[in-house]
């Protein structure tokens, strides 16, 4: 019989909270970064491109370890957050950062695909009609990138729900505090009586993923119909 313990419910809640927070916080940065990479010419663009896409190819554990080094007490960002009274390491906020870093390239890539399909002449038309750069960004580029934004957000949300390697290093695996669904499954898989609990959480993970992908599909269709 598959059933969920109260710690499992905590893991589910935390997974959803971490994934949603990471996606929502990354969205404006992802949009601006995609805009920068699509429409602006500047030196060092190729380097920035490689840097942002690095999490796609690096093992998540490496990302987690690098985050731990930089956000830890002796890291270059840790003391700054300490001074602001913000504790990150081994909190759910660290899990958000880990998910955001790992999912960011997926978000940016999808938004960029949307932006690259925008005809430059539409932007030229907007500028000659009296719109400045920011005005054009919000009234032309943003609405015309909405397919990419929806696709990128869904991908990032799904990726964040499944994030494991970076999270366990930087946030730990503390039940009720930083333990997300994948971490809880990892715990159950290591214990002799944990098989059915692991399976139950797998089922939950599958249901959440199906819900995310279905929402993405419905939203995309709705946007296409409106077009």
């Amino acid at each position, binding site marked *: 019989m598959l059933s969920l313990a109260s710690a499992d419910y905590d893991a589910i809640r935390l997974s959803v909270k971490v994934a949603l927070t990471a996606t929502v916080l990354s969205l404006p940065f992802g949009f601006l970064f995609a805009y920068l990479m699509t429409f602006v010419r500047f030196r060092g663009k190729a380097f920035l491109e490689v840097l942002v896409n690095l999490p796609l190819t690096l093992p998540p554990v490496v990302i987690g370890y690098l985050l731990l080094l930089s956000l830890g007490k002796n890291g270059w960002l840790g003391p700054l957050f300490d001074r602001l009274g913000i504790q990150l390491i081994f909190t759910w906020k660290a899990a958000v950062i880990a998910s955001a870093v790992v999912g960011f390239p997926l978000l940016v890539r999808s938004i960029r695909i949307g932006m690259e399909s925008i005809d430059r002449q539409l932007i030229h038309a907007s500028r000659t009609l*009296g719109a400045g750069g920011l005005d054009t960004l919000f009234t032309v580029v943003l609405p015309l990138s909405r397919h990419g934004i929806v696709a990128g957000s869904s991908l990032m949300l799904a990726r964040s729900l499944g994030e494991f390697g970076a999270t366990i290093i930087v946030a730990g695996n503390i039940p009720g505090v930083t333990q997300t669904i994948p971490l809880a499954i990892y715990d159950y898989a290591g214990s002799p009586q944990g098989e059915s609990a692991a399976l139950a959480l797998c089922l939950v993970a599958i249901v959440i993923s199906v819900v995310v992908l279905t929402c993405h599909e419905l939203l995309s269709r709705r946007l296409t119909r409106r077009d």
Partner: protein
Amino acid sequence: MELKMAVEKTHGDFNLQTDFTLTGEHIGIFGSSGSGKSTLVGLLAGLATPDRGEISLDGECLFSSSRHIDLPPQRRRIGIVFQQAFLFPHLSVEANLFYGYKRCDPKYRTIDPQALISVLRLEGLLKRGVNNLSGGEKQRVALGRAILSNPRLLLMDEPLSALDDTLKFQIVDYLRAASERFHIPYLFISHSLLEIRLMTERVLSVAQGRVVGLATPEELARQRMGHSQVGYINLLKVEPLRKLGGMTVYRWGTSELFVSGGDDRPDAMFELSSRDIILVKKHPEAVSARNLLKCTVVDTFPSGNKVGVELACGSETLIAEVVMQAADDLAIQAQTEIYAVVKASSFRRLG
């Protein structure tokens, strides 16, 4: 409108160098593709930056490399109608039309939106999305959108090239009606001499990134007659009179023209190539061609290895083209009386 443009721009292998001053309201820029017309448009509108030089419009400096001035496009008040309409696909026709109007400083808003919508016959389209409009409707919306932004100069960059012939001449009527009604000076950019002749009063010729001449469209058409594959295109404004067999008889000035097919639509315009006109010295006894027009030679001019002949046919003018030997045989010179013979099937309706 006074436009001064002395700029240089190099892009890859292409180098554009211009130094001209244009005055007038309806000016054309003529050149083949790759001649630099669209680069000029981009530099003027602020969508591209010259390497060096100066651009000023009505005394206001838009760009100066020496004074480090480069007004952004939104502050130049130069509207553009592109080859494709480039309407914002996420906005309705109405929202497209008012995009520039809303962003225009109220002190410059001189155009009444309702009057423009009426001139362009867009009343029935306002609530529609733009994706299901026809090509002609899209271009009318694009024109309205550009005019409603109340520009001090409108750039029309090959606005008719993507349209078929029928639509093209409908849009020409809208362009002229709107520009006359709202007094907007424009630069009409095209590789089609016919469009330039229909839309402009003076024309700047551009070739390989250089300005190669400034003339009236008529002068340019005559200069290019010998090099053109279709000769000089006479534009004949006519009014329908009656049907006759498979033809329509039109009033053209004080003459009558017999045209194959045709219809009773008023204000028709036909084109007739200079190469489709045969000149004869004496009235022929019998001829199969249906149009025999008694004319007087006004002038002759050389055109490549041929001779252009300007004819006065009643109140109207025709340009014919003959080889030099024929001009000598017929002793064509000013004031000579001559007959122009034209087949009824030689006319092509515009629009």
